[in-house]
């Protein structure tokens, strides 16, 4: 039965009318009109639907909306603010450094997988500011790209890491 649920997404509170077992993804897309997380497989296999739940990358396609009650959900749209809060910046940047690095590397092709790519890379860099090539590959390994953009994503994550740790290109 549909009930009213309160969830916190991108630092805003929402109350949604959904059956508690509804996957979070459908609520984010249809009730909150968000465009970051998107359906890819519905099976936790591809990373298309990834969001951060309390800073941890989570597959929203298999996470019941009721499971995030009382937690903080961040989507692609909310990453700049999330980054500003983490870094205690006075003002949030227009883009998270990972987002900017993806543009700088011209990493996207169709770009459909980049929601998951950016969310996952942002999570990685929040835990490990200077990952090695092998660490990037292993952290990102659960995210698929059918267009074959992996090499440029790896380069972009390195670039973002440098930007975030004050290094120069």
């Amino acid at each position, binding site marked *: 039965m549909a009930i009213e649920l309160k969830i916190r997404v991108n630092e805003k509170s929402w109350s949604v009318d959904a059956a508690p077992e509804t*996957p979070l993804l459908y609520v984010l897309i249809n009730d909150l009109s968000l465009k970051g997380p998107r*359906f890819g497989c519905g*099976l936790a296999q591809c990373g298309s639907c990834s969001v951060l739940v309390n800073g941890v990358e989570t597959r929203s396609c298999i996470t019941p909306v009721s499971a995030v009650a009382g937690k903080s959900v961040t989507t692609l749209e909310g990453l700049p603010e999330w980054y500003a809060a983490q870094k205690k910046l006075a003002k949030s940047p227009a883009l998270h450094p990972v987002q900017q690095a993806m543009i700088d590397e*011209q990493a*996207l092709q169709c770009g459909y997988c980049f929601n998951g790519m950016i969310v996952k890379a942002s999570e990685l860099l929040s835990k490990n500011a200077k990952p090695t090539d092998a660490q990037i590959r292993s952290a990102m390994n659960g995210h698929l790209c059918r*267009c074959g953009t992996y090499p440029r994503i790896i380069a972009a994550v390195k670039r973002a890491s440098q930007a975030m740790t004050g290094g120069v290109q």
Partner: protein
Amino acid sequence: MKSRRDFLKSGGALVVGFSLRGVISAQDHSGAVAGPPDAKQIDTWLAIHSDNTATVYIGFAELGQGNSTALLQVAAEELDLDMSQIKTVRLDTNITPNQGGTYSSASIQRGGPQVRTAAAEARAALLKMAAPKLNAPVEQLNVNKGIVAVNGSPNSRVSYGELIGDKQFHLAFAGTVPVKSPAEYKLVGKSVPRKDMPAKVAGEYVYMQHMRVEGMLHGRVVRPRGQGAYGDGAKILTLDESSIRDIPGARVLRKGDFLGVVAPKEWDAVRAAQKLKATWDIKPTLPGNQALYQRMRSGEAEDRVVTNRGDVAAALASAAHTVSLNSTCPYQMHACFGPNCALADVKPDSALLMCSTQDVYGTRGGVARVLGLPLNKVRVQYQDGAGTYGHSCYDDVAQAAALLSQLAGAPVRLQFMRWDEHGWDNYGPAHVGEVKAGADASGKIVAYEYQGWHHNWANVETSEQLGLSKQAAEWATGAAQMVSQNCGGMYDIANFRLVNHKIPGLLYLKGAWLRSPLDLSFSFTSEQAIDQLAYELGMDPYEFRQHNIKDPRWLGVLDAAAKAARWTPRKAASDLSKASVVTGRGIGIGTHLASYGGAVAEIEVNKDTGRVVAKHLYGAIDAGQVVNPGNVEAQIGGQLVQAASRMFKEEVKFNTTNVTSLDWASYPILRFDESPEVTAVVVQRLNERSSGAGEEVMAACAAAIGNAFFDATGVRMHEYPMTPARVLAALKYA
């Protein structure tokens, strides 16, 4: 009825319906005149607005390859605008010209010249308008960013916007105004960043999958999990509509054997589709993976000699060195990362359809057929989705959404589930290839023969087949066939023969073109045979190819790939190691119809586990004049990674009744951990006609990988994907 120009006047109000909550305002079914608009009018191709910007109408889909940026570059170049002053609109059968589908990497090849000439004619017309205003002859005018000025008196000027702003040219497209020469280019040949990326990384970009309209229902199709033989379709035996009675608002919709559900909430539609009890008449008519190649090779086939030059048999008989090489190549799938999606609003007398088709006019025909409406009552709009790489399920999903909307009497948004997309794709067909080749003692190839077996593309989509009981059919001729470009045609060979064996495809899987269609199979087979000849002769495989190629453009990409990889001559497999993990390098050339591709692969083979990984792939393309080299480099990188995925991982699995590759676990693709480094080289030829660059390096890459395996192990792989089990078996029996 509003005309297309009424939309233009309202400042490009064509771009609507984007907001999730929004309505497809103005975009009602008769929102403009049914197209295609008259290609002989300049106004069909572009419009200049009062704010001194331009809109170019491009008949090609943006498939994630940045072609719209490149075509805008071409238009901006001729108009002397800068990139910030120019935009395009999405494809719409009522708005954009019919330039044919976005196939065979055709956007730049076919679209470039049309857009270029139209822009040049518009500029000439604008200069003619400016001349009396500025009291100067046309010859003394110059243009910079859409401002026309008199040479030497920069204050005497007028902008394009002031000259024509949002009014029509009313000018026939003559195609006679001279275009700029490459020496004059300011924008063409420059790497302009793609315009779509900022919105895409910010989560603001609107993909097809985001489109919503007021009052719509969510739909899902219900089919057996995984298709059976194409000719069999799928027949419903029993259906229990009460099985979804407890799902709020869910409805079962059926037409013939086409079955689907709709519900106001998406999750309800998803679970209704999963819960609905239906049984299907499943026939064990497929060969299954086990018997596939044997059936293909031994069954009936329509044989056709594609090319026959000289006397191959005699030349082979007298050749100093001969090789023969057979291969078997699997079905592979498009496997769009975001399953195909369509939104249909079908009224009794008209229909509006949005989907990610590569060909809005082609899709319009199919949708009109299933709905029983005349063509001019159906409007199809393209909306960018996830990459499609050829004829994936976009026509099927469009027809299915149209049927659901017609049956429901409401707009329906349909997105395929992962198992629909994987299980009911139009797969890239399997192939069996046999090559014989011979060389004389000096290393000159004297004879070559390639015989290939495969079926053709499907001509009837699943929704139409099921819903209207339409008999499955394949393309009659053309399309899936041997082409010399990838089957030895790049070499200078006197005795040459290609034979195409078209097998009837109705008892196989539904097939269609998959990025670089059949080319990976052709070149994996052909280029390994060529490589083997070099080996028999004791020659370096790069030098052997140089020795046998006359065409400077083939030589150009071969050299470019070799140079990028710092190739040093040595005979293949001349450095075999006893270690468990060995490395190898290989070279290959290939293409898809036009353009020229070359590649070098450096791979690593673990002889204990059978795991093969590409460490570094180098790809070079000659696509004539490359408008946006940065973009093409990105394309090459994607092609190399995707080709590696196809050579190492991808194979559609099926048994005698149905496809069993239904998700990313049962159809694995390459991941980060095995991603190669890539190096892309654009061989720029500004004075040559542009040709495609979206797929032409893949065949070369497949060949290079096959040859690298031989270099590493001394063993030829005759089948791909080169999975650990296959590799271990090949090494064992060698």
